[in-house]
C-alpha cells in the first residue's frame, strides 16, 4: 500500500503567480511587446531592404577585417548556399531575433554581472538563480511567454533572453574576479575611487572574458530562437517545424544546415572580435 501524501501544488502556485503577473502588469507587457515588435520589424526590414549581394559583401568584409580571408571565403560560400536554397528570408528573420535577443540579454546581464562580482552577497544570491535559468528545459520558457506577450516573435525574444542571459552574467562576474589582486592593490594604493577602479582597471581587464560570455549568449540565443518556432517565431526554426509536420526530411535538413552555417559564422566572428581585443 502506498502512503498517500498530499501533493505539493507547485504547478498551481506558479500558474497563479503568472496569472497574477499577466493581469497586473498587462500594461507593461503590452508596452514591452510593442517596443520589441517595432525593433524586430525595423531591423528585419532594414536587412531585407538590402539586396542579398550587398549584405553578403558587408558580412564578407567584416569577416576579413576582424578575422581573416579564410573566414570571409567560408562566409560567402555558406551564405551563397543559403541563398541558393531559398532560405535567405528565414535566415534574416532568425538573425534579427538573435541580434535583438542578444542585445537585450547583454544590456541586462553586464550590470548584473558587475554587481555580482563586487558584492559577495549578491553573488551568492544570484548563482542558484542562474543555475535554475540554465538547467530548466528551454521549452518551458515558451509557455509563460505566451500569456505575457501572445504568440509570435516577441514571446520568442522573451524566452530567448531568459535562456541566453546566464553565461553573459557568469563570464562578466568571472572576468572581474579574475583581475589579479596586485592590480587592484595598485589601483587602491594610488587612491583610485571604486568607480575609477572599475572603469580604468577591472572592466578593461575583464573584457576578453566578457566577450567569451557574449559569444556563449549568442550561441544559446540562436538555439533558442530556432526552438521558439513552436510558439510562432518566424525564421529558419519555422522551416524546420514545417518540415517535421509535413514529414519532409530534406527540407528539414536544408533549414538545419542553414542554422549551422549561421551559428558558425556568428561564433567565429565574435571569437575573432575577442582575440583582436586581446592583442
Amino acid at each position, binding site marked *: 500500500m502506498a502512503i498517500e501524501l498530499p501533493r505539493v501544488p507547485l504547478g498551481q502556485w506558479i500558474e497563479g503567480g503568472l496569472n497574477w503577473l499577466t493581469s497586473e502588469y498587462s500594461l507593461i507587457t503590452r508596452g514591452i511587446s510593442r517596443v520589441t515588435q517595432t525593433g524586430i520589424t525595423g531591423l528585419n526590414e532594414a536587412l531585407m531592404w538590402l539586396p542579398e549581394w550587398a549584405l553578403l559583401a558587408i558580412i564578407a568584409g567584416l569577416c576579413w577585417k576582424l578575422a581573416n580571408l579564410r573566414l570571409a571565403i567560408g562566409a560567402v560560400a555558406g551564405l551563397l548556399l543559403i541563398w541558393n536554397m531559398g532560405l535567405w528570408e528565414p535566415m534574416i528573420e532568425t538573425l534579427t531575433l538573435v541580434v535583438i535577443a542578444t542585445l537585450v540579454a547583454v544590456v541586462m546581464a553586464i550590470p548584473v554581472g558587475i554587481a555580482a562580482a563586487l558584492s559577495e552577497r549578491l553573488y551568492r544570491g544570484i548563482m542558484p538563480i542562474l543555475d535554475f535559468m540554465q538547467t530548466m528545459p528551454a521549452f518551458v520558457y515558451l509557455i509563460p511567454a505566451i500569456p505575457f506577450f501572445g504568440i509570435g516573435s516577441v514571446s520568442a525574444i522573451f524566452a530567448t533572453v531568459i535562456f541566453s542571459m546566464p553565461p553573459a552574467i557568469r563570464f562578466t562576474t568571472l572576468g572581474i574576479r579574475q583581475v*589579479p589582486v*596586485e592590480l587592484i*592593490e*595598485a589601483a587602491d*594604493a*594610488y*587612491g583610485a575611487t571604486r568607480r575609477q577602479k572599475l572603469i580604468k582597471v577591472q572592466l578593461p*581587464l575583464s573584457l576578453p572574458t566578457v566577450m567569451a560570455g557574449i559569444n556563449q549568449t549568442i550561441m544559446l540565443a540562436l538555439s533558442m530562437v530556432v526552438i521558439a518556432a513552436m510558439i510562432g517565431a518566424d525564421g529558419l526554426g519555422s522551416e524546420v517545424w514545417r518540415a517535421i509536420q509535413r514529414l519532409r526530411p530534406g527540407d528539414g535538413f536544408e533549414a538545419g544546415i542553414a542554422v549551422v552555417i549561421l551559428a558558425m559564422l556568428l561564433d567565429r566572428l565574435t571569437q575573432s572580435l575577442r582575440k583582436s581585443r586581446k592583442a
Partner: protein
Amino acid sequence: MSDNRNVKIRVRNLSKVFGNQPKKALELRDQGLGRSEILDKTGQTLGLSHIDFDVHEGELLVIMGLSGSGKSTLIRCLNRLIEPSEGEIVIDGENIPELGEKALLECRRRHFSMVFQNFALFPHRTVQQNTEFGLEVRGIDKEERQRVAREALKQVGLDGWEDAYPNQLSGGMQQRVGLARALANDASVLLMDEAFSALDPLIRGDMQQELLQLQNQMQKTTVFITHDLDEALTIGDRIVLLKDGEIVQIGTPEEILTKPADDYVRRFIEGVDKSRILTAESAMRKVRATVRDSDGPRTALRKMRDHSLDSIYITDRDRHLVGLIEAEAASQALEQGKEKVTQAMTQEFRSVGPNEPLHNLFAMFHDNSFPIAVVDDDRRLLGVVVKGAVLDELAQAAETPELAKSPESVETAPAGDE
C-alpha cells in the same frame, strides 16, 4: 646620523590580527600568550604585534624579515591596503587608521606611491599610460600629466618606450615603469614592496644602485621591504628587522652588523660579506697623538717616542689635517736646524671619509703602510686606521656567528658515556 631629522611617519603599538575576533586575540596576547597558542585557541593569526618605529624625513628605511615575518602586512598597513587591528600610524599629524573613506583616498593620493614585487603594471595600458595612472586618478589635466610622466620615464631611463605595452618589456624595464609610476605621482612617501626581489641578481644590483642615486638627488622618504639582508645593508639608511610579527632590532646597517641585538640577528648576519658593509669609521682608532703645524721637529720626535709611533699626523689649530711626518724625517730636520715640522712633512699618505667601505682600504695599504687618516668633509682629522685594525675588524665580524654557534656544537658532540 638621522636622529635629529624630522619624523615623517610615526608608528606606535601597531598590531594586526587576521581573523574575525581581533579583540580576543589581542587580549590573549596581552596575557602573555604566544603566536601559536593564540592560533590554537582562537584560530586567529597574530600578523603584527606592538610595532613601534619612526620613518624620518628623507631617509631610506628598510623593513626586512623572512617570509611570514609580517613585513608585507606592515607596509600594507601604512596605506591601509590592509586594515590594522590597533595602533597609530601618524603622517603629518594625520592618524591613518582613523581616516574615513574619503580622507583615506586623499591621504593615499598625497602621501603614498607604491612599487610592487611583481610590478603590478596594468597590461592594457601603455608604459606612458601606466606612468600617468596616479595623476589621472587625481584628476590632473591631460597635458600636465603627460609631461610629468615623460619626465619620470626619462628619470628611470625609459624615454622612447612610452608607447610600448608592459608585456613587451623585460622584468627590469617593467620595474622601472613601476618606479616611474611612483615617481610621477610625487607623493611624499615611496613604499617599495620587495621591489627588486623578482629581478635577476645583476639587474637587481643595477636597480639598487640607481635607487641610491635617485635617493641622493631627491631625498625621498622611502620604506623598502626586502627579505634579502645584502640588499637591506646595501641600500638602507636604517633597518627594521622583523621576526614573527615583532621588531627584533632597529639600527643602521653597521649597528646591525656590529651590535646584533640577539642570537637571531647574529645568525641572520652570518655569511654577509662584511668588508663591503663595514666602513672606515668602524675600524677607526682615536689618534693617540698629533703635532701642531707650529710645533718643531723636537716635539714631534718626543711625541712619537712617547707613543711608540713611526710617524705622526700634523694638524692646524682647528684640527684640520695638514700632513704627516716620519720619525726619520723629523730627526733629519732637527739636524738641519729646521724650526717647523711642516718643513719636513710628506703628503704621501691616504685619507678617506668615515663612510669609506672597509674593503677599499685594503688596496690603500698596498702602497705604503702609513696609518690611513679618516677625515670629515672639512678635512678635520677624526681618527686613523692602521693595517692591523682592518684585519681585526673583519676577523671579528666573521667570527661572531661562530661564537654564537659554539655552545650548540658542544652540546651536540658525542658525550662518550651512556
